[in-house]
């Protein structure tokens, strides 16, 4: 195998452990973000849905404040969000560089993204079932946990699967503030050194990872929907 593309020969004995280490870092950032951002986003999404006019926790002020905040934060491109959050990251994490600083920014980004996804999935629930639960004497909190979440579980799982991929995307950008991980690895060792093999290997790893998660998400959603 020889050709003009192969300007560098890869020392896989040295590169493979690095690839694995960076995969581990990416998974760490993604999983922590998915758990914390996932929970915060769930809470925020539920609040957005339930405080809306005519709903079980109707509250015009809370709804409008949350709605405006989500609308402002969500469209900010992640790389700009990282920069914008700088002072807050410093206050919360103690530093603006490294994996943990990156995770903080990712959590903020994921929370607001997930909030909208959760809200949109809850909107599809038949209001009649909420009425039936109210008529049975259920209060708002019971309705949230025993009705809203279970009824929307299938679409919510698919939503979170979608979010997982978006978080992998964010984690790649996290390299710019020293977050390391696969994105950073591909740029440093692949792109910067004209080593297409490394870049290609990273792409394969990410594609496989995303496929696995998508498969798992589809399977869980199908179980939840019983279809």
């Amino acid at each position: 195998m020889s050709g003009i593309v192969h300007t560098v020969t890869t020392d896989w004995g040295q590169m493979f452990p690095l690839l694995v280490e960076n995969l581990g870092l990416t998974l760490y950032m993604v999983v922590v973000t998915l758990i914390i951002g996932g929970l915060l986003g769930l809470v925020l999404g539920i609040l957005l849905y339930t405080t809306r006019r005519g709903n079980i926790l109707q509250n015009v002020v809370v709804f409008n404040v949350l709605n405006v905040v989500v609308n402002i934060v969500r469209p900010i491109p992640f790389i700009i969000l990282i920069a914008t959050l700088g002072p807050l990251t410093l206050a919360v994490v103690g530093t603006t560089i490294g994996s943990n600083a990156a995770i903080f920014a990712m959590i903020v980004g994921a929370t607001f993204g997930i909030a909208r996804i959760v809200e949109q999935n809850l909107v599809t629930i038949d209001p009649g079932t909420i009425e039936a639960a109210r008529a049975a004497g259920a209060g708002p909190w019971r309705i949230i946990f025993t009705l809203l979440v279970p009824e929307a579980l299938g679409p919510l799982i698919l939503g979170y699967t979608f979010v997982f991929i978006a978080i992998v995307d964010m984690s790649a950008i996290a390299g710019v503030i020293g977050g390391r991980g696969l994105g950073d690895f591909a740029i440093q060792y692949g792109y910067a050194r004209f080593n297409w093999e490394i870049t290609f290997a990273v792409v394969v790893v990410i594609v496989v990872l995303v496929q696995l998660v998508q498969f798992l998400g589809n399977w869980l959603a199908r179980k939840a929907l019983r279809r």
Partner: protein
Amino acid sequence: MPTIVQFEAVSKTFETKQQTVTAIDGIDLSVEEGEIFGVIGYSGAGKSTLVRLVNGLERISAGRLLVDGQDVGRMRESELRKVRLGIGMIFQQFNLFQSRTVAGNVAYPLRVAGWKKPDRDRRVAELLDFVGLLNRAHDYPDQLSGGQKQRVGIARALATSPKLLLADESTSALDPETTQEVLRLLQKVNRELGVTIIVITHEMDVVRSIADRVAVLEHGKIVEQGAVFDVFSNPQTDTARRFISTVIRNQPSDNDLDRLQKAHTGRIVNVEIHESLRIGSILSHAFSDHGVQFEVVYGGIGAIQERSFGSLTLELDGPETSVDALIAQLGSVTTVEEVRA
């Protein structure tokens, strides 16, 4: 019979961005314990609003509303939740929880009421047996037919043994046969369990089939109310008359009359029929007593609350005075209306 639901000058208004809608406009109404009370009206009359006031899903704007002696209009939401445990509700679209099995749906109110699992399981089995769906306990609602879904809805509504059941258009999404099946089940709930039922409907057939008393609702007001038989046999308003004509087409319409006038030469009268009348014996002697021939040209007789009721349109042929005498004789036992001399 003690009163279980009492509306005293109750009004309900909705504030929308553009206007204020008066959905319920000063209603006085009382529902007695143990009866099936029908509320009938056209779309937008305020039927759903009326029934939702009873369990506090909507709050009254004015007046006083007593449910089982409790002033629900003045209660806080947390107090209302306890009241709702004693009131079942079923819906037009069934409103079953898709994420729960049939058994899980029926168990839901029991969970809310804090029942322990073994007690819940026993009660769910009892209820599913009562509605004839014990073998479907582990199926999901989307695996059931409409009639079966409503039976699950009824089992769920009865879970905590409520004294009162609210049924909002509970058969409107079902075909006529399934409607009768669900109505029979509601009747069984009323008779065997002694549950008071408020049935909201736009179908007179539902009222005729199961209600003891009925109120006719129009633009948020009750325009007529009373025992179903009385309202049927002697409607006071056009709205009531139009509803009745949907189930018993016994009086000829103007078109029918035109046709009858062309086809018959004699005098035409409407004779109201009640069960205990002996119209037949009068008519069978019409010729020998008066020299009058009769022909039945239109009519219908049905049953309401197990009593026959209807009207026959007769053509009477004979000398003027003899026909007058026959009409007078019929008039002494029932209402006779001459349609055309």
